[in-house]
């Protein structure tokens, strides 16, 4: 999961993944726990349609897609 380390980090210095769409943050462990450890983890379609994805998470995945983080 090296790709997870490429995600932006929170501005508070906690080292958590920064979710800029709604200014939230999540630990890497929590992110994996929510969406599973899979090769599809960085696929936009996979994440967008995941059962754990909420409307706010959809906003974030859209933002990451625009930023080129997801494809």
């Amino acid at each position: 999961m090296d790709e997870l380390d490429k995600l932006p980090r929170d501005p508070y210095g906690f080292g958590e993944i920064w979710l800029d769409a709604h200014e939230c943050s999540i630990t890497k462990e929590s992110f994996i726990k929510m969406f599973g450890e899979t090769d599809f983890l960085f696929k936009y379609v996979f994440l967008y349609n995941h059962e754990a994805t909420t409307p706010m998470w959809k906003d974030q995945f859209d933002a990451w897609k625009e930023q080129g983080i997801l494809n």
Partner: protein
Amino acid sequence: MAETKIDLKDLEKAWKDVADWTKDAKVEVTNQKEVQTVDGEVSISNLPEPVDVQKVEMTNQKDVIFPDLQNVKDADVKAELESIKGTQAEIIAALKTTNESLLETNKKLEGTLDTKLTGSNLEDGIPTINIGNSKGIVLADKEQIMSGSSKTFATLSRDNELLGAKKISFYVSSDQKCKAVAYFYSYVTDDLVRNNIEITAETSTTLARPSFLTMEVPVTKRVAVIVTNLSDSDAVCNVNLGISW
């Protein structure tokens, strides 16, 4: 008419004496009176009187009544003074007692006054504290938190909201199961310092009761509350602070 013979030499000598006499003579006028002018002809009837002899007449004069007691003994004055001093001492003692009583009352009030929010304000979710030196700060008003994620709500360091604060109360509520943790910023570095203070999660959109009671505040300029959404749904939460000095 008999003819008088004058010796010319004597006449010259006389003139010379007169000249010498007037040469060094000084004439000084003292006690000069003001010049008074009289219109028209001067006659005895309108001749002004000298100022220094003008008459002054006092009218509407009151009779002066002197007190019967003219002779006051020093002993009587001293006794009266001692009496005044005694009264003054009694007044000062009474004021001192009153002041001490007020100070004692203030101490008791400081000890018993509670800054916990109670009443309808809480039910409205509006942190209004008007007891003593206290105030409420709204950190989050119906803020959304993504499921499984955290959100940080911090006071502004530039406003010096916590300057001199001694106690702080945290009020956190949410429509989903949440966990809130209080953080204090380092006064020196302004970095967040975790204090492992967990605020009880509540499932309520209103601040029905404090989620965490009053605690002592370390020296800090900022406080942050990090709320973690533990549910599978997006959450809405409120975070308020009650600060007292």
